[in-house]
């Protein structure tokens, strides 16, 4: 029974990882193709659906962590997934005025390359039982460039969206109301920007540590 469940887990995770891999591959391909054919303003329109699909699917990873299907601590994945979903739905989808910005291109390209490597890495581990060392190297090295470019794009796009957020009053709850509750999406966006200040170095340093651990471990083997 245990063996059967373990096999089921492997099949499920293989399917999950490779499916999302193809989603991100699509995002990357369409982004580059559209950039060359039509310019950066059209990139969002081309990638919107695969981007939303691939990024939102990551919610499943929180569940995988919670039920113990994977070993990753949710404390590391939760901030990452939250910021991704915030950008995808809370900024880009909600405020179309941001969609034509050039930072969208740098954003989706940074994200898609990172995710293509990450999902194929996990996909191979589930299917083959191991991942080739060049893939391991890519997984723990590309972030050195892609984290800064990705984070800059994220912060930049939130900043670009600010005037539209303020003017539209979207997602705001005003007082007076029975529950004496108020929520201002604009101020939340400011708070979100502020969290990048301690959050980005923290994530980067965490990845540097992971890199050291992963690459030295593979050298020993």
């Amino acid at each position, binding site marked *: 029974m245990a063996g059967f469940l373990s096999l089921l887990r492997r099949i499920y995770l293989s399917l999950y990882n490779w499916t999302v891999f193809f989603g991100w591959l699509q995002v990357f391909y369409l982004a580059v193709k559209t950039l060359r054919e039509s310019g950066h303003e059209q990139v969002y329109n081309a990638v919107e659906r695969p981007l939303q699909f691939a990024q939102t699917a990551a919610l499943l990873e929180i569940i995988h962590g919670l039920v113990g299907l994977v070993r990753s601590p949710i404390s590391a994945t939760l901030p990452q997934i939250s910021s991704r979903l915030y950008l995808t739905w809370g900024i880009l989808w909600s405020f179309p005025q941001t969609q034509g910005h050039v930072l969208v291109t740098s954003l989706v390209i940074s994200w898609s390359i990172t995710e293509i490597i990450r999902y194929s890495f996990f996909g191979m581990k589930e299917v083959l039982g191991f991942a080739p060392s060049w893939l391991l190297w890519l997984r723990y090295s590309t972030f050195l460039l892609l984290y800064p470019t990705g984070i800059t794009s994220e912060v930049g796009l939130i900043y670009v969206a600010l005037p539209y957020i303020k003017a539209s009053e979207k997602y705001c709850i005003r007082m*007076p109301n*029975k529950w*004496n*509750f108020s929520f201002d999406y604009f101020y939340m966006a400011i708070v979100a920007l502020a969290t990048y200040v301690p959050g980005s170095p923290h994530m980067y340093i965490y990845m540097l540590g992971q890199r050291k651990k992963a690459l030295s471990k593979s050298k020993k083997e």
Partner: protein
Amino acid sequence: MKVTVVSRSGKEVIKGGIDLGDSATVADLQEAIHRRSKARKFYPSRQRLTLPIQPGSKERPVVLNFKKSLKDYCDGNLDYLTVVFKDLGSQVSYRTLFFWEYLGPLVLYPIFYYFPVYQYFGYKGERIIHPVQTYALYYWCFHYFKRILETFFVHRFSHATSPLSNVFRNCAYYWSFGSYIAYCVNHPLYTPVSYHQMKIGFGFGLLCQISNFYCHILLRNLRKPDGNGGYQIPRGFLFNIVTCANYTTEIYQLLGFNIATQTVAGYSFLAVATIIMTNWALAKHRRLKKIFDGKDGRPKYPRRWVILPPFL
């Protein structure tokens, strides 16, 4: 006897070890480590001393109790002992920690009530103050004033100190939520609940605060004043039915406040506080059941609710 003090990675913390008499206590060892440590950095409350465990063993290491003799920890050989040292970091007394945590809500809340803060949030003009907002101010401030008094005059702590980092973490929690709730309740556009609901809320809450105080007195009397901590089976009043009656009454008094003031901010604070206290209560309940297992002449811990009858 000769005591070797190593870190968890195996390195010697005190070069050459420490020589102590055979009847020395753990407290003596801690004092010696303190004296021998560089710049006398490692005062006793910073030291966590454990017996070494086999690598790969899943057992939790035995923590040395400062009251006991060192020979109680020697398994056979009374000449040599190895202890594992961990630096717990800078420590503050629990009184210091609690004082700073509670000072925030006590001082910040009235600022939102008395001072024209809301004009900086864009609300110009006069503010009409509803009676419930005034009562909420008194209730809230009484609560934190009570807590500070209890910290200095009532509580007897099991550990003397807490890590310094907890000061920042706990103050952030109390001060942020305190400000957030104060902001919502004293807001110019605040909508009060019915007079009846307010009376029930504050009345119930006050009853719970008084019960909570009595619970603290009962807990205090379980421990001796020499600050040695230790655990006893709590008895009397609500403790006969629930292990952590002090947490129970605390949760209900906050519920009373929320019934009277009705804010999402207040209820979210209640939710977080309940989760935190429930975790503590489960740990305490488990610990008491483990200590009072009914064997070797020890009493058996009676069947009781943990924290929130009839749920847990």
